[in-house]
């Protein structure tokens, strides 16, 4: 049984006002005299926010647990890096090509994987990541194997500009995905995710909707992956094509609050920031983050955003 949702009717304009204020505050961060280190963490956090939002579109709405988020991210990142390191295209073209390649990869993954349900779907998406990683290592003459490829071009060396690029990507993704999930398309997608049988009886072609959701998710994942390559200067398998990075994306989305798009964005920034904050603890820092995430998962299934809703209800 799914608990009926009430947030669609009673929220009013407040969430949008809060979101606008948060974005303005974030945009002002570089002027508040924060150091470059903090800015770089926020930049990475915002890229991670994009990944988590894309995952939420697939799980929260379409009901498909994608354990291979890094398959889409990695395809975008490596496409951009390969084009750039061979001198074939300018960064802007590389980034667009990365996003398009991710969409193609998303369709190629979705068509066979959507025949499967639940854990089987999860496994195939996970295996897709493992296979991509092995292929990259196999063709290490071109891809640099586990060491990775360095890209010769960068967009800018200014940490402030890089921060704004990440912020722009995150805000654009959040806007598009929010509009999408509140559109008729999004409502059908959510209906399919919650009750595929009834949705099919109503005459909706499930596969078409799910593949479209995959395309959107892949597009923004690939875009952010490609942008991140130019920010980091290298594409390596441990950052872009790693099953455990895919798991981190899932953790960020669930900790933030699934089926909200905005929640996973908060979760993404939170996870990266928490890992950095706990860094002095050494190997225990990852454990600390995992414990916090597990406690949130077990006792606040709505995530951090769900906790604020609980608070509102209590009043």
């Amino acid at each position: 049984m799914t608990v009926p949702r009430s947030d669609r009717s009673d929220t009013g304009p407040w969430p949008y006002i809060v979101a606008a204020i948060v974005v303005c505050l974030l945009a002002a961060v570089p002027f508040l005299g924060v150091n470059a280190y903090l800015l770089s963490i926020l930049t990475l956090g915002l890229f991670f926010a994009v990944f988590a939002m894309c995952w939420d579109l697939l799980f929260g709405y379409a009901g498909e647990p994608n354990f291979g988020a890094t398959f889409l991210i990695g395809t975008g990142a490596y496409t951009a890096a390969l084009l750039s390191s061979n001198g074939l295209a300018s960064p802007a073209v590389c980034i667009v090509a990365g996003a398009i390649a991710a969409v193609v990869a998303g369709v190629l993954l979705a068509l066979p994987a959507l025949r499967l349900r639940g854990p089987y779907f999860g496994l195939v998406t996970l295996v897709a990541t493992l296979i991509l990683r092995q292929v990259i290592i196999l063709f290490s003459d071109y891809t640099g194997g586990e060491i990775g490829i360095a890209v010769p071009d960068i967009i800018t060396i200014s940490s402030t500009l890089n921060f704004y690029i990440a912020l722009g990507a995150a805000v654009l993704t959040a806007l598009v995905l929010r509009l999408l999930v509140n559109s008729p398309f999004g409502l059908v997608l959510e209906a399919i995710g919650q009750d595929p049988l009834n949705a099919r009886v109503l005459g909706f072609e499930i596969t078409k909707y799910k593949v479209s959701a995959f395309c959107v998710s892949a597009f923004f994942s690939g875009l952010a992956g490609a942008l991140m390559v130019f920010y980091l200067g290298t594409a390596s398998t441990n950052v872009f094509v790693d099953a455990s990075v895919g798991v981190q994306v899932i953790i960020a989305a669930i900790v933030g609050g699934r089926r909200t798009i905005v929640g996973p964005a908060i979760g993404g920034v939170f996870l990266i920031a928490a890992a950095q904050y706990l860094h002095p603890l050494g190997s225990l820092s990852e454990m600390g983050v995992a414990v916090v995430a597990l406690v949130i998962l077990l006792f606040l299934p709505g995530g951090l955003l769900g906790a604020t809703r609980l608070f509102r209800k209590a009043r």
Partner: protein
Amino acid sequence: MLAELIVSGVIISAIYALATTGFTLLYGVSGILNLAHGTTLATAGIVAWYVAGRSDLGLVAALAAGIAAGVAAGLLTFWLVIRPLQRNFELSESDEHVFMLVATLLWTIILQEGLASIFGDVSVSLPQMIPGVVDILGVRTPASSVFVAIIAWLVIGLLWFYVSKTKSGQILLAASINPRGLVLCGINLGRVHLLVWALYGALAGFAGVLVAMILGVSPSSGLDLTATAFSIVVLGGLGSVGGTLIAANLIGFIETATAYTLGPSLRSLPALIILVIVLYFRPQGLFGRR
């Protein structure tokens, strides 16, 4: 070459078979895919290695310690992760499945980092159980490896005997077929779940010690072991113990053949591709019921 391949394929497959039966038994009875499985194996292997290096009792003590560690890890997973999630009635069924997977993955990270900070993040392997080499089909094989393969199959045989010939084994089997019917017969399902988690822990503990003998384990090798176990179990069909045993041999031989012909670094690639192809044509796995 061919003989070599067969001998090491048989040994690897025996270990894979034992290492995945617990995983598939747990899924069959309680419907939970424990993604912390590989790390449970690693925990048992590392604890056994620690005890073997520090006690005079040798490998018997190490094996006992490994099994105890496996049972402890299994019960802790059940009490700290699975129970709280099952008691949360706000979650829909499909949400609960994914939450279960994510929670066990987080538990993997916690166990892994805990092990790394206590024992150090290094790969360990247990000493050979018995010295010497034996000659099989003209291949010189460490006697210990042969012994391990025999023990693995013996334990699987014991498990089969337990499930099909004893009363509590039959209860486990019934729980995997129709839990509601079992409750109607007056059996406490909560205790059945506790039993299956303890049994799972013991099996994983035993398997973990054997894995540490043949392949070696490290805290961070858990996820790779889980991926292999997951592939084997899904290939055989979730919840089907017979299917798991066949799939374990299939994957074991394919991996060994790949390692011999294409090189060890590509060891897992063909098995993964075959897995995807099989799932495409038979989404329920080779011997799955649904």
